[in-house]
């Protein structure tokens, strides 16, 4: 029987489509460029007939609608440009996790071979916070290879760092996901229709492809969206710890009121990637709250849209 159509489901689809469009065309739609020539380093303002000069970061409305960052780049342009980096990175990481975890989990679930190893690996990775495995090597690489000043860094080093970042974040996600999948596969493998297929001579691969996978497909989709959100959370945590995918620019801030204090380094994303924008804005919350409020609202809306879509999708398919 066909499922009853729900207006909210279509609304959720439209929202997701809108996000994808922004990600795809944000680079073209952005009102200002993000090159050195596009930086506005000084802004003239007339207040009560007096000319005043302002330096970035500018507050919203002058000269940009959403204000600017410390380099003088338009916040709206950064956010429009950065969405694709956030989504593509999270999607690739999620896809990589699934590419390895799905066959591994299904094979272990059907055959039972390696289930102990999988359980142990799952325990090791789940027992200790992911940042303890990720932060020290990634931060060592990031600063060791000079990616905190990416314009001067060797592109090969950036590629190496990105590969290691992808490799490590993927590796840490494989085992918990494979374990979850193995449990679901084991559940379906005990069903009578799968036993019947086995008795009729169906190979393990045949049972996985023809019987278990069609039953587990929807769950895989739910898991995919949840995992995508989890990867976004992890990317944000790493950004808070100054690990910025794609490298960063560094601003050295010296507190002129406290001579002798340790200079404070600010790491800014070069692409406008959203989680890095939040991490950067959070450091300037007191003085320039517009940076964190704008990027935070954009990110929260993205997550809520994904959750809303997942909820509506579950409602429609269950």
């Amino acid at each position, binding site marked *: 029987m066909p499922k009853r159509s729900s207006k909210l489901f279509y609304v959720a689809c439209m929202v997701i489509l809108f996000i994808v469009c922004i990600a795809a065309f944000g680079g073209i739609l952005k009102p200002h460029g993000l090159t050195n020539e596009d930086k506005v380093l000084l802004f003239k303002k007339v207040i009560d007939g007096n000319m005043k000069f302002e330096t970035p970061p500018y507050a919203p409305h002058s000269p940009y609608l959403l204000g600017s960052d410390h380099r003088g780049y338009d916040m709206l342009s950064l956010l429009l440009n950065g969405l694709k980096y956030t989504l593509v990175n999270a999607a690739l990481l999620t896809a990589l996790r699934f590419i390895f975890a799905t066959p591994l989990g299904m094979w272990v679930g059907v055959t039972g071979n390696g289930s102990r190893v999988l359980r*142990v690996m799952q*325990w*090791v990775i*789940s*027992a*200790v*916070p*992911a*940042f*303890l*495995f990720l*932060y*020290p*090597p990634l*931060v*060592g*690489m990031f*600063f*060791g*290879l*000079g990616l905190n000043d990416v314009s001067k860094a*060797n592109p090969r*080093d950036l590629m190496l760092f990105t590969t290691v970042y992808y490799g490590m974040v993927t590796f840490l996600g494989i085992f918990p996901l494979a374990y979850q999948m193995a449990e679901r596969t084991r559940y379906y493998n005990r069903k009578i229709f799968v036993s019947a297929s086995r008795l009729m001579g169906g190979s393990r691969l045949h049972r996985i492809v023809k019987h278990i996978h069609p039953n587990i497909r929807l769950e895989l989709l739910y898991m995919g969206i949840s995992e995508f*959100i989890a990867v*976004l*959370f992890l990317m*944000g*945590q790493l950004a*808070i*710890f*100054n690990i910025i995918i794609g490298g960063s620019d560094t601003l050295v801030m010296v507190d002129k009121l406290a001579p*002798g*204090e*340790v200079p*404070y*380094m600010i790491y800014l994303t070069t692409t406008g990637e959203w989680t890095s924008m*939040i*991490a950067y804005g*959070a450091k300037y*919350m*007191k003085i320039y*709250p517009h940076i*964190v*409020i704008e990027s*935070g609202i954009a*990110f*929260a809306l993205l*997550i*809520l849209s*994904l*959750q809303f879509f997942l*909820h509506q999708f579950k409602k429609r398919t269950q």
Partner: protein
Amino acid sequence: MKHMMMWALLGLCTMAAVFMLGAVNKAFIHEAPDRLQVSISAETTIDEVITQLPGSKMLDANVRVLSIPYGKVDEYRKLAAALPGVIQPRAMPLAKTEISFRYYLFSVKKLLIDYSHGDLGLIRTGDYQIQVKSILMKSALRTFTYFIPGLIVGVLIAVMLGLLASISRLFGKWLDSAHAICSGVPDYLLIIFIQLVSIYITRMTGRNVILVAQYGNHIPFMIPFLTIAFIPGVLIYGTLRLAIEREMTQDYLTTARAKGLSHRGVIVRHVIRNIMEDLIMVLPKATTLALASMAVAEAMCDILGLGGYIVSPRMQNISATPIICIVLAFLAIVINILYALLGKLFVVQIREGR
């Protein structure tokens, strides 16, 4: 016993992995680990300097570059600086950053030797160097002041709300909607939200309601506490709601109801006991999330706790990261063991009859 030994070994292997990964930054070298450049005055000769630096050899007489034992640049620099007539001994910078596995292994070995002598590493902030040994206990206690109460409060509130939501349908509906929204809030957004609210309240009232960052001995409590309580709490609530829903469909509850037990009575007398396994199963994951949130909160509030020391941009970790990571991993593993013991005590064990 064999089972326990295996898990203990696994815990040790995990900590070893955390240690090895914690020292990876040592693999990136900017200076040659076996070269030293010295400038000398007329007071001495380069040959005299070489004789007083054991194991050193002249490599380039024109620029006075010496070959010294591998990885001893700092030690030999200090040694050379103390010699009469030697001016500014310095390490030889490399043309570009190199990845050296030899130096990584050398550093790992050196760290282990230092640990065996009670030296747990150094942290540099500005011109000051801090011994990790001197701050480890203090920062651990600082972290525990909000981590342990936050985790306990988070678990208790989640369990209570989960049970309340099952007892009252209207309340449950409200809570489930709130849970759907809350589960989409990452820890860093929650912290930013609390910090912003606090800043605006302070601006409006002129009173500091919630401390948003550490200054001096004033350490924020509410932000890390709320974050640590909230993130695992959301996970536990969701898990318990599903577990209770599953139990409510079981036949034994129909029997209990048929025998006259009220809805509340069914939950209190039967369901709680049977969802204990789900609670114990979700606690390790909740604790891992709480530990990660704790580090994020410390990074964002600039608190020099266990997580703060390794992620703070004010602190340059010379050799502190591995030991602090080990302490955090040890804490996580100990809590996991505690949960395993709790599971043995409280989870109803079912065995097939012979």
